[in-house]
């Protein structure tokens, strides 16, 4: 059937074209060809391997199709010559691919070396994965969650570990991934050439909400970053407005056993005590000191600020939009009302935030307090 052969040919070419569309550098937030920084560029410089692979694939495909066309059985044809082999040909097509691969190996090894070189100068951030969120700590004592702020145009040294199971830190446009393993600390590096937002997510299966353990890296111009860095080191300011004050009280009673807010005081005006162990398997919950200065929350799954308060159907809202000034109140309230209904967790096993059965007025007060933690 000529159609069968043409179909196969068309299919092969179609696949090849399809494959090439994936290669284009586009605006997709986690595009591995994005190469927006020094390290991801090192990796992207090896992308010619994909082209080479496609070329080899096309050669094989063409050979098969040619054989199908030329040697299709014709009625009455004799038994073909019973060729058993051809040693020198076979040796050639054993050795030649080996040589090609040796050529590929050289830049591969060079890149491995460069990816693992500690930069002469870098800012260090401790990265800790736990079910199901990322913690980032800076040298000045600042601890934040879900959103990593870095200076654009500078190298950042990461020290990656985990508090429970294996996770993997991955921001594709800035570098390949590196696993976060409990009991080990892994050195890794990122750098963003330009200010902007870079998205990533946990890339090692870690249980129920593995899919919801996202990362947002915000690269700021150096001056902005320095200001951010200083502001984050300050403790939270005591609220003045009544609802927010009530919120602080509720926080000190219901939330402070897990969540640290540096500078928070209880109803009596005493600083909250954070020395007791956190009742979670991982031993930590997100630090909320400057919660409202972030653009995402709950494993970076939801935007903290929205475009339009009337955004319908919060479930479908795309978190990867630029920041906007309207607080995502509905989602924040839904989270406080019943955390596991928003992101699957196992609070009964002390993995994830429990449902505190807060009343609606308590939720309103807490939101008022959290919204003020800029």
């Amino acid at each position, binding site marked *: 059937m000529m159609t069968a052969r043409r179909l196969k040919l068309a299919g092969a070419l179609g*696949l090849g074209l399809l494959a090439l569309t994936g290669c284009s550098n586009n605006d997709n937030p986690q595009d591995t060809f994005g190469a927006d920084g020094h390290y991801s560029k090192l990796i992207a410089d090896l992308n010619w391997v994909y082209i080479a692979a496609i070329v080899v694939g096309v050669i094989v495909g063409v050979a098969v199709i040619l054989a*199908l066309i030329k040697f299709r059985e014709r009625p009455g044809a004799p038994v073909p010559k019973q060729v058993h082999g051809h040693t020198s040909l076979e040796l050639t097509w*054993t050795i030649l691919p080996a040589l090609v*691969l040796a050529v590929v*190996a050289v830049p591969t090894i060079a890149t491995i070396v460069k990816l693992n070189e500690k930069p002469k100068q870098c800012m260090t951030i401790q990265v800790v994965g736990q079910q199901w969120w990322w913690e980032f700590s800076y040298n000045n004592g600042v601890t934040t969650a879900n959103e990593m702020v870095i200076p654009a145009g500078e190298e950042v040294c990461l020290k990656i570990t985990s508090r429970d*199971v294996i996770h993997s830190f991955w921001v594709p446009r800035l570098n390949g*991934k590196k696993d976060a393993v409990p009991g080990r600390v892994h050195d890794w590096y990122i750098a963003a050439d330009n200010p902007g937002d870079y998205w990533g997510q946990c890339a090692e299966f870690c249980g129920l*909400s*593995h*899919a919801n353990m996202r990362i947002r890296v915000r690269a700021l111009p150096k001056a902005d970053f320095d200001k951010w860095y200083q502001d984050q080191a300050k403790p939270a300011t005591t609220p003045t407005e009544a609802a927010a004050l009530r919120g602080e009280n509720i926080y000190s009673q219901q939330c402070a056993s897990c969540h640290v807010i540096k500078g928070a005081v209880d109803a009596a005006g005493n600083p909250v005590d954070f020395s007791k162990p956190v009742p979670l398997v991982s031993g930590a919950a997100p630090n909320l000191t400057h919660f409202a200065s972030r653009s995402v929350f709950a494993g970076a799954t939801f935007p903290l600020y929205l475009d339009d308060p009337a955004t319908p159907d919060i479930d479908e809202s795309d978190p990867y939009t630029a920041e906007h000034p309207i607080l995502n109140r509905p989602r924040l309230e839904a989270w406080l009302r019943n955390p596991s209904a928003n992101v699957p967790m196992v609070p009964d096993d002390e993995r994830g935030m429990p449902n505190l059965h807060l009343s609606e007025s308590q939720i309103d007060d807490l939101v008022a307090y959290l919204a003020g933690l800029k």
Partner: protein
Amino acid sequence: MALIERKGQLELGDGGDRAEPIGVFTRPMAETGWRSWVTTVDHKKIAIMYGVSAIFFFVVGGIEALLIRLQLAQPNGKVVSAQLYNELFTMHGTTMIFLFVIPIGAAFMNYFIPLQVGARDVAFPRLNAFSFWAFIFGAIFLNLGWFLGGAADGGWFMYAPNSGTLFSPSHGIDFWTLGLIITGIASTAGAVNLIVTVLNMRAPGMKIMRMPVFTWMSLVVQFLLVFALPVITVALFLLMFQRNFGATFFNPDAGADPLLWQHLFWLFGHPEVYILILPAFGIVSEVLPVFSKKPLFGYPFVVFSGAAIGFMGWGVWAHHMFASGLGPISVAVFSITTMFIAVPTGVKIINWIATMWGGRLRLTTSMLFAIGLIGMFTIGGLSGVTHAVSPADLQQTDTYYVVAHFHYVLFGGAIFGFFAGFYYWWPKVFGRMLSERLGKWNFWLMLIGMNLTFGPMHIVGLQGQPRRTYRYAPGMGFDMWNKVESVGAFIIALGVLVFLINAIQSRKHKAYELDPWDARTLEWMTTSPPQPHNFDAIPTVHTLDEFFHRKYDEDPATGAMIKVKEADQVLEEMGRDEHIHMPSPSYWPIAVAFGLPILAFGVIYSHILIVVGALMVLGSLYGWAMEPATEPDSGGHGGDVAPSTELVSHG
């Protein structure tokens, strides 16, 4: 050969005559009905049981896949919960690898190795039966989690510490761990059996370099199994002790390194993938020559490359761990070894094309699947080479790009190879042909379906879609391709359905011809289906492709090959052996096998059952060992049997 000569009736040590067997029960005799299947030691019946079980689990794994694709057809799918999704992808991978590809390989190997080497059965027929029963009990046990509190949910790779009871408290992972220990015992026993069979029971004249390539590849697979299964069994025991008896092998708080599990798992896991693919490579190496009317191009190179893949497969395992925190030297070394394992595989692909080149190609369904394998495996193999470039792999690993890679090599490779085998060998096994018309639909639906399903995964993987995620966010660029993939999955399902219909309706299809494909190897030099004793006379082998050379001769004038004999004439001339004795059926294999799941239940629920199960295993082993080697009065095990001067195999 593993046969001993025995005169007359069974002689007892005390010199007395054999009046009563030593075993408590007499040896079963059934030749028909369900009892004949439960007690069979015939490699062909065992193979059919493996095949039916494997296809059942193929459908189970396929349904799990369809549910996954339904969930992922939209970004924030609500088809299944996150918990159920994690169970589904864990069980899909586990089922497809351990309960489909391995046993369907076992089915083909069990059926055809004895026939291809000219033997009457395998070296240890009862052990063969035990392997099947242990497998099916292990397979069922593994799946019990679905009904008893939740299936395993830690991924088929089951990384620690997520696999511990702290993070996965249901018994699902226990059913998984113990089920795989049991199926591992089955496969290890089977491997020993087939190695001895191939090395010791070949027909006269069948030198090792005259064996069909399918048998050669199977031999390499058995060696891989023998060495790889103990590694995962150790890992599974460590995990089982951690989960059930308080051990801390993988607990970082106790000083353990979680990477220990990864090393053990992948030391098994990488040879495992060659275990999965080599039988299909063997099948294709049989099918292509038959339907090209030419011998396999470069038989020695193909054989040696198979052995090379077997060896080199041990040196690449940490390419599954490039992002896990290995140092750059380890990463570099494994990067290089992984690149070079592409060489022997490439040799095969080229030699297969060279087999077709200059041939006379008959595009039967079997041939289409074989050619499909060449195309699809090449794609999967090339994406594998891109994985070897470890910096690139740091982007690719744990994304859908990897999912694309292994589905191209497993579906487009292993599964296409097995389907080529189905269509090729169906008339041999069942005496009926599968419909070629339905077969073409089967092939095209599967080919188009798999490319629609797994092709776009290359793209979304490189666009940043990670694996093992029950949902993905909109606005990432994944939406459209995921819909395409889900549609493709249902097209594959249609293709499988067509195959099942084809299989069922084949009973009514035209009655068999002796040699429907004008084949080349020994298994075709007998009736279809073969008699229980396989060959009326064990042939003497003079060359590779013995059957072909008995039918065809070189015309002295032109040098061309002309057919000088038809198949029935070749069979006639083989004659018949005078004395044929076959191993007797036995129920001890299923009895021993049954003790294993009881023991496993005991580990999970009640330690008393461990003792019960162990006693059943040990007691049945005793019965097995003491069972008389043969029923001296047995008249007909499917053929003429003369009771004196018998050749008795250690059954």
